[in-house]
């Protein structure tokens, strides 16, 4: 069940991110649905599931996009772990918590990715990256946080109910 749950919550956002959202790009930028899902999942499920989910979604993102392998595994693993760590410390009822975490996560992930790419000789001017990629991406990810957060919450509740019914 857990494996199926991971596959469902990773595969669907990945397919949407690569084939639907290019049609709905904002200033030429597509949102990072897997980053949002990882953070929300960590917030709901805790450290261990958050870390595993982050590592798996990072691996899938790395495998789906041709480029340097390992960037997304590292950053999404860390973000899943961080969100999971906060699960016990904060009250999750307010939407503002995932919003703040997604904003911070997007900035950290993009800056980490940018510095690794730069170190390997990719040609990306910082001002262009900041204005044309990072800012619109932050905005787009923030807009999508609420639907992803509530959708994931509903999905996880459904799975929990089904498991309880099966147990009873």
């Amino acid at each position, binding site marked *: 069940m857990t494996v199926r749950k991971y596959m469902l919550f990773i595969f669907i956002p990945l397919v949407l991110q690569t084939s639907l959202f*290019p049609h709905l790009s904002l200033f*030429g930028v597509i949102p990072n649905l897997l980053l949002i899902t990882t953070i929300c999942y960590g917030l709901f499920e805790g450290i261990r599931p958050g870390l595993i989910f982050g590592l798996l979604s990072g691996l899938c993102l790395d495998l789906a996009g041709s480029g340097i*392998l390992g960037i997304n595994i590292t950053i999404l693993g860390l973000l899943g772990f961080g969100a999971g760590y906060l699960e016990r410390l904060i009250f999750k009822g307010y939407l503002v918590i995932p919003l703040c975490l997604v904003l911070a996560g997007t900035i950290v992930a993009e800056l980490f990715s940018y510095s690794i790419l730069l170190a390997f000789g990719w*040609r*990306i*001017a910082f001002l262009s990256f900041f204005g*044309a990629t990072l800012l619109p991406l932050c905005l787009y990810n923030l807009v999508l946080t609420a639907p992803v957060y509530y959708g994931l919450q509903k999905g996880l509740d459904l799975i929990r109910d089904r498991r309880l019914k099966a147990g009873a």
Partner: protein
Amino acid sequence: MLQPVIQKRVLLVILAVCFLVVTGLMFYSSQEREKEIWLERAFKFVLYPFQKIIHAVTTFVSDTWTTINELGALQRENDTMRKRLSELATELSQLEQLRAENERLRELLQFKTASTLELIPVEVVARNPRNTSATITIDKGSNYGLTRNMPVITAEGLAGRLLRVEPFSSEVILLTDPRPGNSMSGVIERTRELVYIYGGDKRGTCLVKPSDLSVKLQTGDRILTSESSLFFPKNLVIGTLVEVYVSKDGYEQYAYLEPATDFSRLEYLYVVKEK
């Protein structure tokens, strides 16, 4: 007593091994690779049908929406087109006669056919999920005879080349992708002087550097593919120079090129195959 210390050391060793593995993986994958690792290929193979379904649904919905919105305008356009069609039919019959005459004369002069290029139409199915990369997935692969590094064009000009070819799909690296190795030579249409074009730097543009100090770049210059290009046929439009920078001493010069192809609206492309 010693258990927490040992656990801590084991954890540190695991972290160090993970760090080394990930760094090694990054080094291995940082350069353009001829072939992907088996896991990448298998994953993309599984992902592709789902991407194609979502793409088909999205295209159908957006096409239907556009058609409904433009129904009135289409009616008017249809009337105009009908008139134009009858005019063009007359012109076409005249051109057919001229073509037949041209062919007869070519045969007499023993000219070779001008073009030896074959265009294979392809459709964009997915885009790279990373915003820093500019690669797209198309719906044809080695089953259509496509091979690595084949040029990819649109009606406007050059779009890129095939980075990887799978049996039923391929990945195209666009001109603007910023990875090292995504570069090519070109010529200025005005002077036929050689320039070097590198993908990236500023998002959506390419960086252009002159081949030597005597070459002068100007805003508005059109850049074409050069004869010395490894993968591309000559004289294809690459784009136009939009910003030119020259250092005070004049020894350093570079420009930004706006590609002729609009990469944000790519739907249909052509892969160029030698006949």
